[in-house]
């Protein structure tokens, strides 16, 4: 009980600090949020124009609108920047004082993610509700069971994207070019996770790669759940199973990278 209270207190303090720092960078946060809205908005604009003559691959204009609004929310609730922080902490020695504290640095990153997602996700949700008031196309049917399943899928996707980001950041223990790996992954995810188009519109070979690897579980599966694009218990169960398997593998990769990495850490700088 005391231990649990200690963790709650630690996380509350970390999240509070993250929010306090955010308040110092209001403009930067606003710009990141704008970027989070702009990317799906542009993709929606393109598909809206393409679908002017009728549905594309089963997606009518209203379907695209719902898909990209759902994507906007899911992306903000699952996005993780930790690789960039880790890369800097390791290369510039900012990991040193974090290693000297009785708290694994991953907890600071998790708390930062909770703080960021609560803020950005909240803003996007409010934005979506406001747009839905005047634009029926982006409204979703009220289905508590589906929303609950979506919440679970978003949680799994967020956890997976976090461990992917944290683990690729840990590559900085071995190479000064860890950021190149992150860039490559971000580029692949742009297409394979469903950020520029629903996966069903990708060429079959690419869509199958996205389905076999972890990319679909990162964003597309929760979006499909929320918009109702994935049907049937078996399809939904399969999506969750894939998410859990890949989350487990990325968690194992994190554990391995962390335990090996700290052993050969050079602890640069004073």
């Amino acid at each position: 009980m005391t231990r649990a209270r200690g963790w709650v207190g630690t996380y509350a303090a970390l999240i509070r600090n993250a929010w306090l720092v955010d308040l110092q960078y209001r403009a930067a946060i606003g710009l990141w949020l704008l970027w989070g809205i702009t990317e799906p908005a542009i993709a929606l604009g393109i598909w809206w124009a393409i679908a002017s003559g009728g549905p594309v691959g089963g997606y009518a204009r209203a379907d695209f609108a719902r898909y990209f609004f759902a994507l906007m929310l899911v992306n903000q609730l699952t996005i993780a920047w930790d690789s960039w922080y880790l890369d800097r902490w390791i290369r510039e020695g900012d990991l040193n004082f974090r290693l000297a504290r009785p708290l694994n640095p991953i907890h600071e990153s998790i708390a930062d993610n909770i703080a960021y997602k609560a803020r950005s996700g909240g803003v996007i949700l409010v934005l979506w509700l406001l747009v839905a008031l005047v634009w029926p196309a982006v409204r979703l049917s009220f289905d508590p069971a589906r929303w609950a399943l979506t919440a679970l899928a978003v949680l799994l996707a967020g956890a997976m994207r976090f461990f992917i980001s944290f683990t690729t950041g840990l590559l900085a223990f071995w190479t000064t070019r860890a950021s190149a790996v992150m860039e490559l992954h971000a580029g692949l995810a742009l297409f394979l996770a469903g950020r520029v188009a629903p996966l069903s519109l990708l060429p079959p070979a690419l869509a199958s790669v996205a389905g076999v690897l972890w990319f679909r579980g990162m964003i597309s599966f929760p979006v499909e759940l929320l918009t109702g694009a994935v049907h049937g218990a078996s399809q939904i169960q399969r999506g969750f199973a894939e998410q859990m398997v890949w989350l487990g593998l990325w968690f194992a990769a994190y554990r391995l990278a962390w335990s090996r990495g700290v052993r050969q850490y050079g602890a640069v700088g004073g």
Partner: protein
Amino acid sequence: MRCVDAIDSPLVAPVILAEKLSKTFRVKVREPGLAGAVSALVRPRYRDVHAVRDVSFAIAPGEIVAFLGPNGAGKTTTLKMLTGLLYPSGGRVEVTGFTPWTGGSPFKRRIALVLGNRQQLAWDLPAEETFQLNRAIYDIPDAAYRERLAELVALLGLAEVLDKPVRQLSLGERMKCELAAALLHRPAILFLDEPTLGLDVTAQDAIRRFLAEYRDRHGATILLTSHYMQDVTALALRVLIINRGRLLYDGLLGALVARIARVKRIELVLGVGVTAEALGRFGTVRSFRSPNAVLEVPREEAAATSARVLAALPVADLSIQDPPIEEVIRQAFAEGSEAET
């Protein structure tokens, strides 16, 4: 030269024990130019850099020990191994009964690490926010936190700066806040890496007085590295001298001076008409700017020579000094290097 003076086997159980501690880094070797870059890519070559080699020492509870050495000597690497940041390549370390890299939270709660050129304070927030965060991380009870913070604020004179964003603080104020943040959990051992780096004389002095006071009050053990000899002379009776990864000297600072400095300096304020040549008859004139002069003589002859100078020349003032500690340390490094080659 590997010397141990006076302090080799503490009577009480040591809180820091290093035995044959070694750290070797594997460094990629790259020739300059484009060809070198391509060759390093195709066929990378590595060489071993022995940052620390077979270093052994023991530190008793409550001691303040200074770790000295030129840049790249291995002192910070040793400090990082003692705090568990680095895994050693060989040897054994025990700090407050723990092996640092496997000690986990219980070990980390007993130590504090302050790095002079890296900070844990959140740059954009007042220092008190970092203090609050550390209170949660170290699970410090409310009453203890308030009492310790009040003590640290009083000792370090922080009352005026607690609510200012860290980025607006001077370097000295920031270091004081760093120390406060590092000491809230009341660690048994403080590892300080260049704690006065870049500070002005007043701030350096304030940090030194604080550290001495803190040790006296709480019995903390302090191991510090510094390039400022005033830090060493003001705080540490005992020094560890390391160069090229090897421990050259472990002992009392005074004993080191007696061992290394074979001369004494007689500082004089002379009367009118004394020339450098006249003074030169008694020893080596190190400086002569009338009426002040410095005469260097063999250590064992200092008293007799002083008496002869007083009898032969008009002298307004005279004092016998050891050479500056910087010079002694420099000589120790040089002798250590010669012994190695």
